[in-house]
């Protein structure tokens, strides 16, 4: 009987002492934390996508609290998060425009009704690791003839936490309604095809990144920019220019009239303006 009592006494005593030590330690080693940190973290979406350049939402909240980072860098939280954070910090936030990702490639892989390859053409069958980075590293820079186009193995799809980018007919396509513009996909693209564009300002899109000469581009893809310059000539606002064999749009000047899309012989400029006629 006494043995049991000794055991109970000693272990109970040890537990009591450790409990006391812990409670004293929690007072001695108490670290004050700013209550605003918790509120700021709450105001963020908690997706930890890394679009702000910090390792996660908590790290960004900490940086904002210390004044190291500006409010409104959170792409996925958008304007709501910026306003909420501004209120917590007692400052005024500028309106944050929503941005979305844009894939600069229209090189779908398909065949037309006559069985002829259209879109981006392949050099041959690729049997390696099912991964864009791995495919882009093999000799000859991957299975596509085009050295700039989307490989279509979906590294961007894997990186997206919002289910907003998918491989459709062998080329990555962004779902604007779901994309929050965190650009985690862009970091995974070995061909650097994905760029951020302000939402609503991208009705006219040059969906190609090929800087090869027109004759080279045309050999690899029926939807590649050959740098003919017709779009540049017709643009009334001087907003589209051909540089390094590739048309690019200056969105500060572009008013989405869509004239360039109508003259593009390769039909790679798309006018996605709702009221415009769909480009065939």
């Amino acid at each position, binding site marked *: 009987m006494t043995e049991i009592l*000794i055991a109970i006494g*000693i*272990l109970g005593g*040890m537990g009591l002492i450790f409990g006391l*030590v*812990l409670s004293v330690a929690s007072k001695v080693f108490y670290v004050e934390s700013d209550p605003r940190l918790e509120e700021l973290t709450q105001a963020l979406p908690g997706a930890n996508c890394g679009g702000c350049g910090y390792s996660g939402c908590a790290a960004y909240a900490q940086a904002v609290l210390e004044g190291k980072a500006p409010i409104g860098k959170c792409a996925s939280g958008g304007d709501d998060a910026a306003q909420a954070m501004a209120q917590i910090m007692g400052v005024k936030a500028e309106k944050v425009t929503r941005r979305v990702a844009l894939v600069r490639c229209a090189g779908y892989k398909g065949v037309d009704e006559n069985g002829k390859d259209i879109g981006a053409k392949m050099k041959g069958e690729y049997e390696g*690791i*099912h991964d864009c980075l*791995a495919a882009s590293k093999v000799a000859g820079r991957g299975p596509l003839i085009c050295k700039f186009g989307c490989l279509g193995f979906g590294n961007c799809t894997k990186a997206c936490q919002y289910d907003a980018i998918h491989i459709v007919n062998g080329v990555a396509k962004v779902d604007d309604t779901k994309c929050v513009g965190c650009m985690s996909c862009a970091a995974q693209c070995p061909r650097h095809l994905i760029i951020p564009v302000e939402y609503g300002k991208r009705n006219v899109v040059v969906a190609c990144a090929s800087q090869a000469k027109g004759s080279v581009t045309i050999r690899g893809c029926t939807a590649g920019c050959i740098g003919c310059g017709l779009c540049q000539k017709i643009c009334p606002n001087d907003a589209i220019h051909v540089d390094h064999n590739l048309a690019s749009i200056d969105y500060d000047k572009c008013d989405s009239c869509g004239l360039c899309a109508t003259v593009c012989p390769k039909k790679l400029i798309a006018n996605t303006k709702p009221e415009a006629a769909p480009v065939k």
Partner: protein
Amino acid sequence: MSYIQSLLGILLSAVLTENFILVKFYGICPFMGVSKKMDTALGMGMAVTFVMGIASAATWLVNSFILIPLDLEYMQTVAFILVIASIVQVVEMFLKKSVPALYQALGIYLPLITTNCAVLGAALVNVQKGYDFLQSVVYGVTGGLGFTLAIVLFASIRERVSNAECPKSFEGFPIALISAGLLALAFMGFSGLKIF
């Protein structure tokens, strides 16, 4: 055998021949759970090494000065859990206050290993083998290093396997268990290694 040699022998056995994970199969939970990425695996390994060193020292003191004099050796398991859990909590608070950089590196892993069986196992093996204080600490720290070696090796394998094509039914956890088994088989090659 001199004392230094015995310490070297402990090091060799804890890291290679009696590796905590791959030979003794202690601490499989963090081994499978935190080994998807190299850097988290390394962080976990460092935290385990740190805690195992401290826990070995603390449990040796408790065992020698409280349990043995009172003939309470049969309560070792319970008492050690109590000691390890409290000491990890205190260390965590201490680090948060005094060494924030180390807390940032180990912080999230510390609460996870308060009742890790590798840590408890190290404390109990120390008692079984009758190690003295220094030997216990060396066994704890080198056991933690063995854990780090195993988990880092395994994480690097898993990073590669995640990019490889493997049969649908083996994807994810099954292939991880198979790779762990193969790694353990490889570590069997160290058995019989001795310091003379």
